[in-house]
């Protein structure tokens, strides 16, 4: 028994040694890089922006922003931008600018400038995926304009740490207006047969309140679809916002989905979609109805291959709850409820169809319809020969959305508004 205990103790000792206790650095010797921005630079070079956590003692404490990077005295972070042919060189240059060793193992997000994304990310992905300092769970975001400018202007008001900002924001994507993407997902889209890469889309809002919808709303829809940067808002909040999805064909970005199209992708990928939507009142179109919704079941996608042309049948089941009926019409029971359910179904079916038309036109399959086609191939060698982009563009996709209103909020029926025979009383 003593021998066994001795072996166990020895193994435990080696375990500790092998887990990284050798060559360790003290926390105070390390600078933690939290965000890396990537932009295209002149002469085929790349511009890397490093956002580094500033320790409270060094930064004068407190949360809030470090806008302006090095200039931001007392800020929570330091920003440094380098231009070099490869990311490895920028890491060495970064070390030349600071006393501490820059640790990139705790990077939480990669921000990619749109120009760099449109030029192609394949070369960079090779570095990120092979390097042990990076991990597949690191978030990936494409931004309008340059990543450098975006990082400098992103100044979260509710978080003290920019890492927490990205991780919390992209963990709570219930609206479906944006999707969390990480290095692993993106790389999978690049290499796997049957799905295309995509990334969350973010931008800095000018905060002018200007209303610039990405597309006209659907007939059943009360609101409008937006792309990040165009949401009509004013105020003193963080100008950064997430809405939409950057689409890629191969390693190059080819387009952007708006918020409604992105939610359609979220629904079909079953990415925990739940939230609220404004519906045009079917019986009184000048009024809107507020609805809470969620996916009632994982969407079913059936695939078949007819003479080399894919046919997909998509069934989506939405569960809804009535949150407000300004018209006062009783939609909780009977035929009216069916009418409202059909209105919701048509809205989501319209969004999904619009997203499908858009993505088929771009030749990018963010939902991964091609994955459902894989069992149709006789073997893996035949599958590898297939052109999934062409197949997706040629595919016929039939969408069927069913909605059930399960709950009606805290009211179970609606009483009509009190009518006035006389003219409305004068207002102030």
């Amino acid at each position, binding site marked *: 028994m003593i021998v066994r205990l001795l072996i166990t103790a020895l193994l435990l000792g*080696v*375990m500790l040694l092998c887990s990284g206790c050798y060559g360790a650095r003290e926390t105070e010797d390390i600078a933690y890089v939290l965000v890396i921005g990537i932009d295209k630079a002149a002469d085929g070079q790349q511009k890397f922006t490093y956002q580094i956590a500033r320790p409270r003692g060094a930064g004068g404490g407190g949360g809030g922003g470090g806008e302006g990077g090095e200039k931001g005295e007392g800020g929570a972070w330091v920003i440094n931008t380098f231009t070099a042919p490869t990311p490895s060189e920028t890491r060495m240059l970064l070390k030349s600018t600071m006393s501490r060793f820059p640790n990139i193992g705790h990077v939480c997000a990669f921000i990619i400038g749109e120009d760099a994304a449109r030029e192609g990310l394949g070369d960079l992905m090779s570095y990120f995926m092979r390097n042990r300092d990076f991990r*597949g769970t690191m978030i990936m975001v494409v931004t309008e304009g340059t990543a450098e400018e975006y990082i400098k202007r992103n100044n979260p008001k509710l978080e003290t740490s920019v890492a927490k900002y990205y991780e919390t924001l992209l*963990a709570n994507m219930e609206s479906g207006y944006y999707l969390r993407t990480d290095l*692993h997902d993106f790389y999978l889209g690049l*290499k796997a047969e049957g799905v295309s890469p995509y990334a969350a889309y973010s931008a800095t809002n000018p905060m002018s309140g200007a209303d610039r919808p990405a597309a006209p709303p659907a007939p059943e829809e009360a609101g409008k679809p937006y792309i990040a940067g165009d949401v009509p808002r004013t105020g003193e909040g963080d100008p950064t916002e997430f809405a939409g999805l950057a689409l890629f064909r191969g390693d190059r970005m080819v387009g952007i989905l708006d918020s409604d199209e992105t939610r359609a992708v979220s629904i079909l990928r079953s990415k925990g979609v739940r939230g609220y939507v404004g519906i045009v009142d079917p019986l009184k179109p000048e009024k809107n109805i507020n609805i809470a919704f969620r996916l009632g079941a994982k969407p079913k996608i059936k695939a078949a291959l007819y003479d080399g042309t894919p046919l997909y049948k998509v069934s989506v089941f939405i569960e809804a709850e009535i949150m407000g009926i300004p018209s006062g019409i009783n939609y909780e029971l009977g035929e009216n409820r069916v009418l409202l359910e059909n209105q919701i179904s048509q809205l989501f079916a319209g969004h999904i169809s619009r997203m499908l038309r858009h993505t088929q036109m771009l030749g990018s399959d963010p939902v*991964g319809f091609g994955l459902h086609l*894989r069992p149709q191939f*006789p073997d*893996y060698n035949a599958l590898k020969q297939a052109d999934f982009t062409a197949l997706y563009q040629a595919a016929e996709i039939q969408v069927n959305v069913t909605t059930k209103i399960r709950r009606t909020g805290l009211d179970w029926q609606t009483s009509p508004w009190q009518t006035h025979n006389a003219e409305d009383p004068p207002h102030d």
Partner: protein
Amino acid sequence: MSYQPGHMGLAEGMALIFAATLAPVFLTTFPFSVDTAGPLAWSAPIISYLEFIILLYPLLYVMRHSAQDLYGACRELLGEWPTRLIAFYYVTLYLLDAVLLLRQFAENTLITALPALEFEAAIILYGIMALILLYIGIESLAQTSYILMPLLIIGLLLILALASSRYNFLFLTPWNGTGLVTVGFWGVRAGGINLGALLPFFLATSFQNRRTLKNAVVYGLGLSALLRTAAFVCYTAAFGASISREKLLPFYELARLVYLSRFVQRIEAFFIIVWSIMGMINIAIDIFAALYLLCRLFNLPALRPLMLPMVMIVGELAMLPPAVTEVVVIYITALFSYYNIGTLVIPLILFCAALLRKWREAA
């Protein structure tokens, strides 16, 4: 002979085989298989397990010809010199396995956990641990493996469960991979992985009876094959075949994908512990097997004095290949060719010899 390993029961036998056959799950064997078998590569452990179970009965039949072990049975059936030749082959096979595993585990430790450590130091570290385990003896080693086995199984299954949000089982399609015939043949060639399951046949006199031996193989190898299969299914479902073939350390990559929340992530450090233990035990078992057969081959009275020189030789040999890529290529090429002579061809030759003898006796 002072090196007889004492008495072992079902638990020890099972643990010994489990520890000696699980290591490939941590190495590059599976990504290599994906090149040939595509998304059905995960079936290779099951096919090779079935192959060994089919071979198990001929082996047990062969063992009837000797009151001793496989070495004794071989001598009775084939004579002295062929037996010596076969024993020498197995010595080289177990040594080759020890050398290649030592180098791979040392390199993997440098890649994943201790990048600042000198390569030679990693080899020496693993070598020292293997030496300590060898000195303790195979019986204690088996018992230690048995104690650790539940922890290892739980740890591996926990990682598979925690990474489940990443699985898309459509990546396992087309279900027949590159074709059932191709995959089937590949699975049979992968039988070299079962080398560790032959060890109890060389140590047969230490087991209570033939039934114990049989059950140890069935359960020990079965459990190992089941875990390897589960790991490869999950790995393929998480990475797809195209990425699966790229990775050097599939299970480590899977562990790195675990992300439950901001606070539950980066758990691969735990996994490195698991693989270090398995690596050390497996290397020790391989060196013990080689030394044991060497002692039988040359009728040496003791095994212990050879341990230190042998570990040093294994360490030196492990340092010879210039880069990890060469080691991986040598290991995989040997596993799918040279190893099969020991796990498939020789057992079948012995079985044929046993049948021939019976036929002659009957005539």
